């Protein structure tokens, strides 16, 4: 009898032992911490795998409109709460853009609603004269609250250089125009750079060594659009600016440059001091043609 009960007892213990092997997962017990969840990468990669980037830019030089609005995503770690959670975002002292003139923060008070884990900060950038010759900065900073902290001070999800971006000059993860790689050190900050300087559009055919339009300069582009009656939107892509169209525009613009070069007084000089050039100058300039490196002095004193 006793032996039977012992067997039954051991069996029960063994079953309990098996049941106890089921692992119980621990709930998230870290802080509810805010961070700018602004990402950028190449389009063929799923956006959820995009790395973070701590800056955006308002490139008014390549826009038709005077205002452009950004919705910066701000996310929070941890489980969604059963109540709304508020926090604010401010412009830091590093900001040299002027509120109202250069930008407007549409909602400094942000709310992560109950059951949600992110919200958006709406910022509108305004074109201003100050952006013509300078690059302005709006640096945004999340202000923590009692229940929302800031713990991502060294984010470091610096991405690899996307395919097609070979140098820091055209790598979107380098700070514009520098060799400083933009690694998101502190996710409480996000910078919006504002400038009204045209950058070479996708519909520009030409380089320093030739092509239909030759080297790109803001001055040449603006004048080309003025003379040919085209717009920034026309140069947005090679679909809106097929090469046949570019060639036709180059002819009209080249003829204008040749006409203006009839005298040194009216000659169009580019930003670097050379005579403004498109390939029509070469193909139809005859004895009056010049190269991309020709200066007015060299041309009129030869």
């Amino acid at each position, binding site marked *: 009898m006793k032996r039977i009960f012992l067997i039954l007892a051991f069996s029960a213990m063994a079953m309990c032992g098996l049941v106890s092997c089921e692992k119980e997962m621990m709930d998230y017990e870290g802080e509810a911490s805010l961070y700018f969840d602004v990402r950028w990468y190449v389009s063929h990669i799923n956006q959820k795998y995009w790395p973070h980037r701590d800056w955006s830019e308002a490139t008014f030089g390549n826009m038709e409109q005077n205002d452009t609005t950004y919705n910066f995503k701000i996310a929070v770690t941890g489980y969604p709460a059963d109540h709304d959670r508020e926090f604010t975002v401010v412009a830091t002292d590093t900001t040299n853009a002027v509120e109202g003139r250069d930008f407007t923060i549409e909602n400094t008070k942000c709310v992560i609603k109950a059951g949600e884990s992110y919200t958006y900060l709406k910022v509108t950038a305004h074109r201003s004269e100050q952006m013509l010759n300078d690059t302005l900065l709006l640096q945004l900073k999340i202000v923590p609250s009692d229940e929302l902290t800031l713990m991502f001070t060294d984010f470091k999800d610096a991405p690899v250089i996307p395919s097609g971006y070979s140098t820091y000059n055209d790598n979107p993860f380098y700070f514009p125009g520098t060799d400083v790689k933009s690694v998101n050190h502190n996710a409480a900050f996000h910078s919006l750079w504002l400038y009204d300087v045209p950058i070479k559009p996708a519909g520009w055919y030409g380089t320093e060594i030739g092509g239909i339009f030759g080297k790109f300069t803001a001055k040449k582009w603006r004048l080309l659009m003025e003379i040919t009656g085209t717009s920034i939107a026309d140069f947005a892509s090679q679909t809106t600016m*097929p090469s*046949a169209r570019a060639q*036709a525009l180059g*002819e*009209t613009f*080249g*003829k204008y440059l040749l006409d203006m070069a009839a005298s040194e007084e009216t000659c169009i000089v580019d930003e670097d001091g050379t005579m403004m050039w498109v390939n*029509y100058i070469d193909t139809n300039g005859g004895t009056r043609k010049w190269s991309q490196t020709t200066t007015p002095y060299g041309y009129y004193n030869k």
Partner: protein
Amino acid sequence: MDTMKYRYLHTILAASAIIGAISSCVEDKGNYDLEEINELTIEGIEDSYSLFSLTETLDVTPDLQPSVKGYSEDNYEFNWFVCEGALTTDGHKHTTISTERNLHYPVNLNPGNYSIYFQVTDKNTGVKFEKSLTLTAMSPLVRGFYILGNKEDGIAGLDFLSMPTGRDTSLIPNLFVNKNGIKGAKNLVFTGYYAVGNNTALWLITEDNQYTLDFSSTKTEVDVLPKNLDNILFPTMEGVQKPFHLANVLPAPYGPNCTALCGSNRILLTDGEAYCASIISGEAYGQPVTRDASTVTANIFTPYKVAFYAGNSTYVSTFFFYDTTNNCFKVPTGGYSSYACTFCKKPTDSATPFYWDQTNYTPVRTIVYGENGYGNAGRSYALMTDGQNYYVYGFKAQTSATGMPTKATASTIDPNDAIDIAKASHYAFFSMQQIILYSVGSKLYAYDYARKDCKMINDFGEEITYLAFDFHSASRPTDLLVATYSPAQKGTLCKYTVTDDINNINVEARVDDVWHTDLRIEKVFWRYCTN
């Protein structure tokens, strides 16, 4: 108490052992009293069927032969389904098209090959029996003639004379929905199938505008697409005629399969200019090539609406124009191929057998009509006039970008010999012989300008609205299309055969090739395109 539990336990264990022992000793003798189940043989279904989608019905009546005599078909469930997509792909799916015993399925599939399964389930046994067939769904709009015209109220209409290989010819009316009520159709140009890029287009040209139509063979009704000339023409020269009005797109597709004569380049003619471009990266044109220099200030000339090239070629790399502004034939120049040309110039000229430059004649001769022929090694023709006489020039386009066109013949037509030719509204050159056909009102004439023999072919009693040779549909340069119209009879399209005879004019009506439409026919264009 312990003794009692012990006793119960023993009893339970002993009983279990006995039951187990007994059950393990029972011999399973099996059941060899077998009952025959019904097997089904499905016959009466062909392996393959070919039908036109959207217009024809697949009818199949299977012959069901059960193995059990007298087995009722009430015991069956039927399912016909279309199997689409490869088995290995996510897109593989079955679509039930009928649950009846006999299939009556109006084919509603995009053109292509499909497997259709007939599945019979024996409700008594759950056993399934299957038989499959292959259905080739064809489009009635792949092969045939577009017939463009206007209805009584002037609204543009488009019919399709469907001529599928191995099947009867039938007219599909009102292919063009024309929701915008476009009026005044004058011309239709189908670019044919181009292998490079998405540049196939069906252009409807009206008196003052042009539209691209959907040319899909999978739709029984088509309408206007958004593409228009303002999206593809980007000249900046002063003197360009705007708004743009399309005159022609060349080279025209060739032969029964609408072969692209140049898949990567195209010539687009407007009322004011001609444009050439590579269309590999999309269709876009810059400055007109019908100018006399490569400069932006050059003089622009208006070309005749046909660019001349050898009509028997299967590839066209070069062509030339007739300058209606200065009355001179002009060849393109300035590029590695004529499509890359930037301007045009006069060809090398001499008086024999005719001048390229018509200003050498007094009075100056102007072009009346021109076309590219198939016969005589792809000779092109131009009908000229100086206001008194008419002249026919036969010539051959150059074969390289640096070459020159060659002259073949020049004939003078005395209007007193060619009856009422000065009143003609439509012309067609018979490329095999020196014969020109022309229509005056309801009368069709043929004139042999070598033998100076004129013959009235027919007085239709109603206005001739269209006249053209049709080499492409059957590779026969002797086929002639004639369309007539009257308010009572509406539109009629008929075919003639012109005999290739140097000594006689013989034009025979083909009595089986007559079709009727509500349209006043303006243009007939051969189409072969599987898209």
